[in-house]
């Protein structure tokens, strides 16, 4: 079957095997390989994308349900030489080691900061609790979210 969606602000028709095919597989098949597979059971957050602005584990999200919705993948956040402030903050804070969990982390960060531009430490921890990282111990990821909040605040004042 085919579904109509908007991916990273562009209208896109996706070929889907059936309604319940995981959105992760569909996205990767259509070239959005920044979305990573880590567990296929919604337990690690590596595959997080935003659907209508909210983070979902795309490995257990039925592609059929994405029909008519707005999807944001890491490719829609920023590209090399044109990084988004959140991506820049992750790099400056040393929040990226292997980088495999990073797309999911960044998307969850975006979803958080879109709603709550000045989150507390506890709010950041709660927002990222579904995203596992084995490299960093999360310390610098939390720093990155705070730095991103600061950078975004600065730019919104301009």
């Amino acid at each position, binding site marked *: 079957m085919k579904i109509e969606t908007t991916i990273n602000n562009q209208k896109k028709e996706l070929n889907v095997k059936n309604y319940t095919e995981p959105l992760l597989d569909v996205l990767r098949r259509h070239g959005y390989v920044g979305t990573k597979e880590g*567990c296929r059971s919604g337990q*690690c957050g590596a595959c997080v994308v935003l659907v209508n602005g909210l983070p979902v584990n795309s490995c257990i999200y039925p592609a059929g349900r994405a029909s008519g919705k707005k999807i944001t993948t890491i490719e829609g956040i920023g590209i090399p030489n044109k990084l988004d402030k959140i991506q820049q903050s992750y*790099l400056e*804070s040393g929040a990226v*080691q292997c980088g495999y969990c990073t797309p999911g982390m*960044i998307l969850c960060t975006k979803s958080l900061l879109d709603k709550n531009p000045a989150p507390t430490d506890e709010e950041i921890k709660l927002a*990222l609790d579904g995203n*596992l990282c084995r*490299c960093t*111990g999360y310390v610098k990821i939390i720093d990155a979210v705070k730095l991103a909040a600061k950078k975004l605040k600065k730019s919104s004042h301009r």
Partner: protein
Amino acid sequence: MFLICVNLWLKKMEKNNFQQVGKSKIKVDGQALVTGQPVFVGDFIIPGMLWAKVLWSPHSHARIKNIDASEAEKLPGVKAVLTYKDVPRIPFTTAGQGAPEPSPYDSFILDNKVRYLGDRVAAVAAETEEIANEALKQIKVDYEILEPILDPKNSRKKNAPVIHDEKEAHMPLPLAYEPKKNICAHIDIKIGDAEKTLKESDYVIEHEYDIHYAQHTPIETHISTAYFDVHGRMVIITSTQVPFHVRRIVARSLNIPVQKIRVIKPRIGGGFGVKQEVLIEPLVAALAMKTNQAVCLKYTRSEEFISSRCRHPQVINLKTGVQKDGTFSAIDIGILQNNGAYGSHSLTILCNTGSKILPLFKCKNIIFDGDVVYTNLPVCGAYRGYGATEGYFAMGIQLDEMAEKIGVDIVEWSKKIHISVGETSPVFAALGEGVEGVEQNISSCGLDKCIELGAKEINWYQKRRKTQTGRYRRGVGMVIMMQGSSIPEIDMGAAFMKMNEDGSFNLLLGATDLGTGSDTIMSQIAAEVLGTATEKMLVYSSDTDLTPFDVGAYASSTTYLSGQAVLKTAQKIKEQIKKVAAEMLKEPVENLTVHEGKVFGKKGKATFSEIANYSLYTKHQHQIMAGESHITHKSPPPFSAHFGEVEVDTLTGKVRVIKYVAAVDCGTAINPKSAEGQTEGAVINGISYALCERYIFNKKGKMLNPNFNYYKIFSTMDLPELKTILVPTYEPTGPFGAKSVSEIGINGPCPVIANAIYDAVGVRLYKAPFTPDKVLEAIKKNGNHR
């Protein structure tokens, strides 16, 4: 004399005004990672690529009497089914170590016997994963079920079943190996006379410590893709820490020349030791050979837990003798290590439990012996800490107990008992990685400073031994540690560099960045030598066709070992640059200095770009290029002191870490944020291991919790307040004074938390992990409810 030397080095370091080293440069591969570029193995899709799936053993120990794959082969879309009948019967080890490996050759690509529940039976390559899975169901296997060994204590019993009864199993080095007795490694070392001195000790403590299975859980599971290039050579793109060992071991296992294989390591989604294993590459290569097509095999999360590699569980019997003045008289360690069904890293992990712990303490009488046994349980392999995690668990708890017994504060006592600059330990020479070690003097040690700063940060003297009442009790604990930096006289790393017209440099590295940031660190080292910016380095790492050899990312070696190869390479390049500049500026080389990407003479100057253009196009044309190798003659230990505060819920037994402090001496931190990141990642992994990570087996040896719901690893809501303190020293044998930092941090949490629990509620825990049930049981039994 030695101290004077070190002081001179320290003075030199202070004078050195590093421009690139010691700065938290942004990762050179960072942009690609934060934008989700196709950089991981799974992102490389080759047209017509097949998907592989493996049939796993449902039994812990069985012989395959008959296997029939004919129905599976008939399924449309199935391109190949492999059983033991279809692969060469060549024994090898999956341990990605230098050749010949100090691990037994006891593995085949596929075998006619299965040795644990989750062992390989057969493999399928098909057009889709669904078809491959369907084909697995069609393979008919007739097993002769054998009695399993599910407790390492039973492995050495007289009539125990023999797990490796195949005639091919052997050790490629002349080392103890007795598969008929299920013993895959053995060590027995005596220094001085520990038996006698133990008897004469004023205080003796002996106890058994039990430390458990765990999995690395890289977020990217094992994945490899193999295909043939236009010349008919096999290309393996794989998530590995050891690309050059992959090439060699695949060549052996399939009996094809090294020349026919190219291994490419792209970005790696975490390793922590589990990808120091040549685990799936031989199988993927065999499937590619059978089908003549590209084949990809990726482990599911469940397969990663059950059928990849784990941390070696150990039962450690530790006995220490101490005199009234607090000096050690003897240490006696006996270890029973469970290696699971295959002998990967068996001997070297065992050796490391001694060699990374014993030299820390000033003790002349030592007994260190151990057996590594086979069981019909999941297979163990390299895991960050590599035996030291296990050893510090026992030693850290016993020293805390000893301090109490002799009536001294553990913090003050710790300062007195550790090895210092200029000193050596007989253990360095006696115990190496599988073979004898290398003698060395300590040339940098910031441990006293680590202890001092750590104790201050945790507020030790206010928090220790506080009388408490009520449901929640708090306590503090600590431990001191060392690790190593590379395997001396064995490991080698190499680098190659060339200069481009615009003054940029290609830096080709065998060193394997698996997410640690080593590509960035190597760039900083090269840039520092050349007096240019880190951003001028174009790094390409780990491709067996294009980069020089390196043993790979393990044994805390990359910065110390490969970094020195880069430093030497960059020095050669610098000499060549100066030579060209001398010709251009018509000044003698002695007059020239290099900084800010330029060469300055007394009369004039030339930019790197002008020099490169001159050398490529103008006169005496040549490519400015160089390569260098490096081996180490020492393995200078990084040192660390860890402190933790816990809160114990006496009603439920739940332990929460409130604050954790890791003070670490890694010499010069080439990239401070990366060094902190290594420490933070290791510490949180260690705390998670100490409190909640565990393998739950049923009576048949089946692991029951192969997913993140039931094998809990720490996430953000579990975090304590974590403080990392980098204590700078200068290691004269390391690049710009650097030592290692990647592994040491994982060794602290088990003993620190056990000691803090004791401080809080007065119970000693000798068996990890400290789950609520165990803590509660211990409190009920003998908690003194301070």
